[in-house]
């Protein structure tokens, strides 16, 4: 470090003294080179600065160093009122409407109120294919209830899906039931309030051949979160809108 510095100092000290006396041409040459070097540095610095200014400003560090795991008291488990997942993961049957007073329970209602995948698949015309489909759709379980009012029979089914890889499974389940309901050319439908896609159907001719589910006089299908809701009313006579709409709305309120 020392010697080049010394040389520089020497030359600085020497040159103004020596050169003008000895050779004016040589001195001019040195001046010219020095000037060229100085101008080069200035021009280069300017050009470099312009390039830098045109660059995207570099962001400062935005994140904090890896967050430590806090060791405070454990979080309180959430209540059913605060977390629908806590509620839905509990006893699903409690979400179903209760049998009205005066109605009787028909034989076909599962006594425990549960329906497994095979049972749900049996509702289809092609149980085996449907069961495979349900597996793909990550069907978890279903809660069922039903009653007989004397005028007609009601069946309510609540299917639950895991939604690990098939988030649309509940919506698809509901949508395919609506598709079948709509194959009846005479069917009338209304949107189910409080749902995006849910619909309520009335079949004016319940026992007609064209009805995909002969004997179903009214039905409602909707989904919410991990649940898909189906309501069927069986009977030979047409059911008034109020009956099915009231059932569907009250059931959705519980979900």
């Amino acid at each position, binding site marked *: 470090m020392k010697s080049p510095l010394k040389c520089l100092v020497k030359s600085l000290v020497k040159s103004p003294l020596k050169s003008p006396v000895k050779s004016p041409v040589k001195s001019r040459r040195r001046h010219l080179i020095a000037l060229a070097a100085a101008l080069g540095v200035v021009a280069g610095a300017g050009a470099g600065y312009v390039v830098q200014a045109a660059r995207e400003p570099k962001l400062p560090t935005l994140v904090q160093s890896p967050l430590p*795991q806090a060791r405070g008291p454990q979080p309180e488990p959430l209540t059913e009122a605060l977390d629908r997942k806590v509620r839905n993961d509990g006893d699903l049957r409690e979400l179903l409407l209760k049998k009205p007073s005066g109605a009787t329970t028909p034989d076909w209602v599962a006594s425990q109120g549960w329906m497994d995948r095979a049972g749900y698949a049996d509702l289809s015309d092609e149980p085996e294919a449907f069961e495979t489909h349900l597996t793909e759709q990550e069907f978890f379980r279903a809660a069922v209830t039903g009653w007989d009012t004397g005028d007609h029979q009601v069946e309510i089914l609540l299917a639950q899906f895991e939604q690990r890889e098939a988030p649309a499974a509940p919506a698809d389940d509901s949508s395919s039931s609506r598709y079948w309901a709509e194959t009846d050319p005479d069917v009338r439908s209304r949107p189910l309030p409080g749902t*995006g896609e849910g619909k309520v159907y009335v079949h004016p001719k319940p026992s007609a051949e064209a009805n995909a589910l002969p004997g179903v006089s009214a039905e409602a299908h909707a989904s*919410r979160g991990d649940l898909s809701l189906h309501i069927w009313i069986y009977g030979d006579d047409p059911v008034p809108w109020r009956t099915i709409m009231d059932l569907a709305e009250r059931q959705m309120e519980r979900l």
Partner: protein
Amino acid sequence: MSGTTSGEAGAAEPVLDEESGAASEPSSPRDRLRGAASALRWVTAAVVFAVAGTTTAYGVGRLDRGDLPGLAAEADGLWEFPRLSSPPLPSDSPAPFADEDRPGAHHADPRALVLPAPKGAVEDRALRGSDGWLATEDFLAEYVEPDRAALGQLLVDSGLRHVTARGWTTEDGTRTRVYLLHFGTAAVVDDLFHRHMAGLDAPGHRVRGAERAVSDQELPDTTGIEEIRRAVYDETRPYGREHVRQGYLSAGDVLAVVLQSREGTVGTVPFLQTLALQSQLLT
């Protein structure tokens, strides 16, 4: 620059003429030699200029942009957040992205997952809702009708569990709102994020005060958190009363919505910082 160079040349020339005139005929070999020496001198000067210039420009170009005088200002604007920590977990529950059984599930108290206000900011207590739980309506109030109604129905259909939020105003007048929407599974949030909330060109629903917004592709994501998907939107000019920036994060079973608005312009740095730190808290 060129003026200085020609001036130098002009100063040198008369001396040469004087000398050559004192010597003899113009085409003598001595003269030619002198002419060659002069040319060589200029070439040397040009080379020195070029080398010095290139070297300096290269050197300046390699420096950190922020180290140069006058270019460091952009780095400022960072907010001073308290030191964050991942909130406590139930003893039998893993961290969100270490959960093999339920990938992306947040088991900590959802109220502890929201980013706290930076130091010096005035907190908007209303966003703490009741006991830390915000009514969905209060979140939806950020959106204009009819998008508000549509989004409200979408959240119901998607099985929204609860909303937690935090809001604050910093000294420069920037108003920040952070909302965390908690759903059943990460797949539900992923679906919601990609199909309904975070469009490629524009957000799925129009925020009040920023009815026209477009995807802001230029904002870098520097967090390096692979599990979290991010979408950011900038209001298109002309701004209304305020400029609004929007950020959406798909973080496991939580969908985070970050809104920042300010008269004038919302700074890039605090917006990205808020998103980055909220991402860290959700990891």
